[in-house]
């Protein structure tokens, strides 16, 4: 789960990472009230889960109340690369002397947290990595040892941090690491991490990705999920406990097991079709979950045909068949279905479907055959 900038800053602040004072606002009036309280000049910042806010005009400096009104009015409702701005963060303007970069990523390959530090902050760090890889100091931390002072010193000296702020940068990194571990983040990124005119080190931005699997231990964080930017079908699926990702095509897909579903999407694409979604009904799906999943798939109006590709292990094919029959009884689908059932109780499942003789439901024996058939039907 990704956090908005201000949510990330509030999380940072809980762990002692210095951040500028600020307040959230969802209306122009709230923005003005917040700015009056914070004092001028201040910054009006769009809160959306996408980069490039500054270039898109979503971050503006305001010298007085009038400018806050104008900027807040312009930015609220603005579209930034497909994301509508519903929320602002009003922040005290900072006196920036230098812009650094710091991040901690969950490095899957090394199986350790990786801390990155660079004095070339404020810009696209991937561009820096390409053009001048030595400008980024990198260090893996043993998660059983934790972040030590020597880690901070190595990073600071490695990155060429100015001597008078080495302690400040080190302290911020240590607190950032504490936040990364305590909040169970997959990524914490500060770009830019600034040195102010009076030589304080402050996180001027915050990008935080939390581990969804750990949210049960962090109920406060779980409530931060931004549902306003969420796709309505994906939201519906999440609320029903289904793993669903919306795609651009017209072939609705349901399968069991993430790998098999991904493979099904690929095989449909190779057969000349375009998948409308990824939907993993999971292991051991019962009939009512299948019915519920069909509703989610068909709530996407682009869908012109649906493929069921099931290889039952824990999942029983007769349960899948019952779920489909129930779905037809409840919602009378308007599009053709192609169903391939293999694995546990496959014969019972196929017999149930044959007996029900659902309109416009086609059985196929193989995954490849089923993919070809559904692509034909989707195009018809």
């Amino acid at each position, binding site marked *: 789960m990704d956090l908005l900038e201000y949510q990330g800053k509030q999380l940072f602040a809980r762990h002692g990472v210095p951040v500028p004072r600020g307040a959230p606002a969802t209306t122009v009036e709230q923005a003005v009230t917040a700015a009056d309280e914070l004092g001028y000049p201040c910054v009006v910042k769009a809160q959306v889960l996408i980069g490039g806010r500054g270039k898109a005009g979503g971050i503006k400096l305001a010298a007085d109340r009038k400018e806050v009104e104008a900027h807040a009015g312009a930015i609220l409702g603005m579209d930034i690369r497909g994301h509508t701005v519903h929320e602002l963060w009003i922040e005290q303007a900072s006196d920036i002397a230098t812009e650094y970069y710091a991040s901690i990523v969950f490095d899957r390959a090394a199986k*350790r947290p990786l801390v990155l530090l660079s004095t070339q902050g404020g810009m696209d760090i991937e561009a820096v990595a390409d053009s001048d890889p030595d400008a980024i100091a990198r260090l893996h931390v043993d998660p059983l040892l934790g972040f030590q002072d020597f880690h901070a010193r190595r990073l600071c000296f490695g990155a060429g941090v100015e001597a008078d702020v080495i302690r400040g940068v080190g302290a911020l990194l240590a607190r950032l690491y504490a936040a990364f571990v305590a909040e169970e983040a997959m990524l914490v990124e500060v770009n830019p991490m600034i040195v102010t005119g009076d030589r304080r080190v402050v996180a001027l931005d915050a990008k935080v990705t939390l581990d969804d*699997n*750990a949210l049960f231990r962090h109920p406060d964080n779980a409530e931060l999920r931004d549902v306003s930017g969420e796709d309505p079908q994906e939201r519906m699926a999440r609320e029903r406990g289904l793993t669903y990702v919306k795609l651009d095509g017209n072939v609705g897909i349901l399968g069991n*097991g993430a*790998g098999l579903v991904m493979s099904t*999407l690929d095989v449909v694409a190779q057969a000349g079709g375009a998948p409308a979604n990824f939907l993993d009904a999971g292991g051991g799906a019962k009939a009512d979950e299948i019915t519920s999943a069909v509703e989610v798939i068909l709530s996407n109006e682009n869908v012109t045909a649906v493929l069921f590709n099931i290889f039952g*292990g824990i999942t029983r094919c007769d349960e899948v068949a019952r779920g489909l029959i129930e779905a037809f009884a409840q919602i009378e689908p308007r599009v053709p279905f192609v169903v391939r059932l*293999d694995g546990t109780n496959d014969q019972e499942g196929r017999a149930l479907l044959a007996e029900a003789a659902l309109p416009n439901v086609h059985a196929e024996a*193989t995954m490849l055959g089923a993919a070809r058939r559904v692509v034909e039907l989707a195009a018809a």
Partner: protein
Amino acid sequence: MSIFVDGDTRLCVSGITGREGTFHTLNNKAYGTQVVSGVTPGKGGQDVDGIPVFDTFHDAVLETGANTAMIFVPPRFAADSILEAADAGVALVVAITEGIPAHDELRVYNHLARTDATRLVGPNCPGILSPGKANVGIIPAAFFSEGNVGVVSRSGTLTYQIGNELAQRGLGNSSIVGIGGDPVPGTSFIDVIAAFEADPETELIVMAGEIGGSAEEEAAEYIAEHVSKPVVAYIAGFTAPPGKTMGHAGAIVSGTAGTAKAKQEALEARGVRVGETPTRVAEIAAAG
């Protein structure tokens, strides 16, 4: 021969008294796996269909000589259970549990890596099947027969699909190992491929990967340098959009890293044949 589990496996199941735990434990036992004990704290002294239940792994190992553990407890208890099994001296831990927090997995991995005493397979995996010998996990054994193809996969049902396509072409398996779809698998493709390379019964290796991370690319390097047996690969997720988690916590394309295309190219550049569909993988394997 086979790898990781066989007739000498003595299995202890953590979470044996839960609904899923009981069901799959009895399935494994019915297959012929020696299931010697289970662990559920507070239920020591009970039994599940004659299998004795203990309060701790230490008791289970002491009393029943368990050398393999299967973890079926919910995510919030799973890391602790894996660590307990390792602390009790269990050599192989197979973690089926899905949804374990990533930082828990990181601690477990780094702790186990300090010694070579315990191998962890999973978490979020379907387990290990050595046809005709032992089944530890949830792989539906009926679809597999004894043979010479070793299969290693990040996905359960995709493994069944590929195994079934192999079976239709008359190919059986030495072992099938699901390493799981999480960001920090205890056992990597490389670990399993090395074991298959050393296993005299295995003549051909099939690896089924998916988007996310760099495990397939690392395996490609390893195969080029260390593996003499033919390897056929499959990669799922060519149509996955960047930034979206495709069901498995580990299956996500970040920027340009972890794409199926990059993995296919890395494998083919190292001489590993890649089948573009599960059917094609089986055809290549059958052709030898």
